[in-house]
């Protein structure tokens, strides 16, 4: 029971110990802050650390519990937020010098929900500037670094969040996902990351990238933890019904996406996802192969939607503070301003077709399975990586398998594969039916031991 240091506990274990007063919120928060003091320089995960406020809130929550208060589901749980999410009185920098003077005047809706549930906010995490990238190397506060290898990217855009959780600087983090920005860093850092159904979690008080495709979601150490956080963020219940509705592994019907989804994979990723599929089959899951038509237009249709909406938000800032952006993000934003409205609308039409095609692929399955990212964590600063003897752009590769489900709106979750000896983390992605995120979480929890093989998280 006491085999993990406090900063390595899962949310579920910590919540249980906090509720029964085996551990105090103050001790747990202090352990995480100590970890931040020790490890943050290695990975540059935090832009703002809220030590004083976090400790004061922890003491107050301990006092409430001692006075007989009923604990909320996250009572005393120390976690972090991607620095796109407003906390009243604290800067929301979006990892950009453009917003260096900004201070939020109200909490985001998700911040309110977390605080009402008893969470303690440790600080605000680094990201790819304005979430407009997948590597974290373009940040006004310097790049976040991979928790296992500082030469590498933790992925992005919620890379600081992933590095923080992986290094024990908080028990979980809340990120955002427009093309994969929760799932990509979670996969590359060996964590669970959830993008719920589009629209389930409010984005009010979150700096937008694409108002059509933005999602808020948790990065955590287990599927159970992701579910606990999802319940709070979405204001729904998942695990209350768990014992009644949990499927058996041998009752699961899984559609394994092939062709576009398996054509371009690093050897390590292919081998480990194959092994995970083999373990699921051996456990009794029925897995058959499915594919989607029109995959050639997935990446092209994503661009006018995100570019058009990013340009609408950033246009006035580009006119007045262009030189405060990092050069690469500024370039892409300036390019975004040339997208025509007619192409934006065409992309939205195509998006509806993709949604219907993913629905059809799911019709006879509980969920779809595919790799989360085709490669392991890339070296920071390298624009391409070699796959199957070809140099491929890192940005295209990292988004390739996640962005389809931002466009379609289906819930998708990444969870870590069994590691090869000394290998970097690899994620398996599970995609559920729209408006059935709790069911996806339940199915993923059943699959988790077979996909993980052994934990990467301890």
């Amino acid at each position, binding site marked *: 029971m006491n085999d993990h240091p406090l900063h390595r506990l899962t949310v579920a274990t910590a919540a249980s110990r906090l509720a029964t007063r085996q551990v105090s919120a103050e001790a747990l928060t202090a352990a995480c802050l100590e970890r931040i003091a020790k490890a943050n320089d290695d990975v540059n995960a935090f832009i703002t650390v809220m030590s004083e406020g976090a400790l004061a809130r922890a003491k107050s929550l301990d006092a409430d519990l001692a006075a007989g208060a009923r604990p909320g589901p996250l009572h005393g749980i120390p976690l972090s937020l991607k620095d796109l999410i407003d906390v009243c009185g604290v800067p929301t920098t979006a990892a950009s010098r453009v917003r260096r003077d900004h201070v939020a005047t109200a909490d985001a809706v998700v911040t309110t929900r977390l605080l009402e549930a008893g969470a303690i906010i440790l600080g605000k995490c680094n990201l790819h500037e304005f979430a*407009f*990238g*997948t590597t974290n190397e373009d940040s006004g506060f310097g790049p976040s670094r991979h928790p296992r290898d500082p030469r590498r990217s933790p992925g992005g855009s919620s890379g600081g969040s992933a590095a923080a959780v992986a290094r024990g600087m908080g028990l979980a983090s809340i990120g955002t996902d*427009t*093309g994969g920005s929760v799932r990509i860093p979670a996969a590359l850092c060996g964590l669970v990351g959830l993008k719920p159904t589009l629209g389930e979690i409010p984005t009010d008080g979150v700096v937008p*990238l694409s108002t059509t495709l933005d999602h808020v979601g948790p990065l955590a150490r287990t599927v159970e933890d992701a579910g606990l956080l999802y319940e709070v963020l979405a204001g729904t219940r998942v695990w209350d019904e768990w014992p009644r509705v949990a499927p058996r592994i041998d009752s699961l019907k899984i559609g394994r996406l092939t*062709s*576009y989804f398996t*054509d*371009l994979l690093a050897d390590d990723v292919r081998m480990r996802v194959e092994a995970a599929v083999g373990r699921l089959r051996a456990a009794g899951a029925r897995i058959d192969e499915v*594919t989607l*038509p*029109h*995959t*050639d*237009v*997935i*990446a*092209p*249709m*994503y*661009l*006018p939607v*995100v*570019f058009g909406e*990013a340009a609408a938000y950033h246009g006035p800032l580009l006119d007045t503070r262009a030189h405060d952006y990092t050069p690469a993000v500024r*370039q*892409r934003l*300036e*390019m*975004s301003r*040339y*997208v*025509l409205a*007619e*192409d934006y609308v*065409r*992309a939205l*039409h*195509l998006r509806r*077709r993709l949604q*219907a095609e993913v629905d059809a692929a799911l019709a006879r399955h509980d969920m779809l399975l595919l790799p989360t990212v085709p490669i392991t964590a890339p070296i920071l600063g390298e*624009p*391409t990586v070699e796959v199957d003897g*070809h*140099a*491929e*752009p*890192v*940005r*295209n*590769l990292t*988004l*390739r398998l996640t962005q389809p489900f931002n466009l379609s709106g289906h819930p998708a979750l990444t969870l870590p594969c069994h590691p090869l000896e000394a290998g970097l983390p690899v994620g398996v992605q599970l995609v559920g039916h729209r408006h059935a995120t709790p069911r996806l979480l339940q199915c993923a929890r059943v699959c988790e031991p077979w996909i993980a093989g052994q934990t990467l998280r301890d």
Partner: protein
Amino acid sequence: MLPEPEADVIESSLTLDEWLRLAQDSAKRRGLPELTPLLAGLAEALQKVRNAHAALQQAPMAPAAEAPRLSTSTHSIEP
């Protein structure tokens, strides 16, 4: 009295070749010549969107060929 509209702008939809030329000229005028290859990549993507949309209008939900490999261009334009 309103000025006469410019006929070459309103007579038909802007082709992507025309769009690309106008966008690249604009970027150069604005001191952003580094956008030139990025805009060319964006034009390729937008052409695929237009082709797919035209096909969708003619035959909704018709099956299509499987996706080709990603471009090996190092000018990544994804956000």
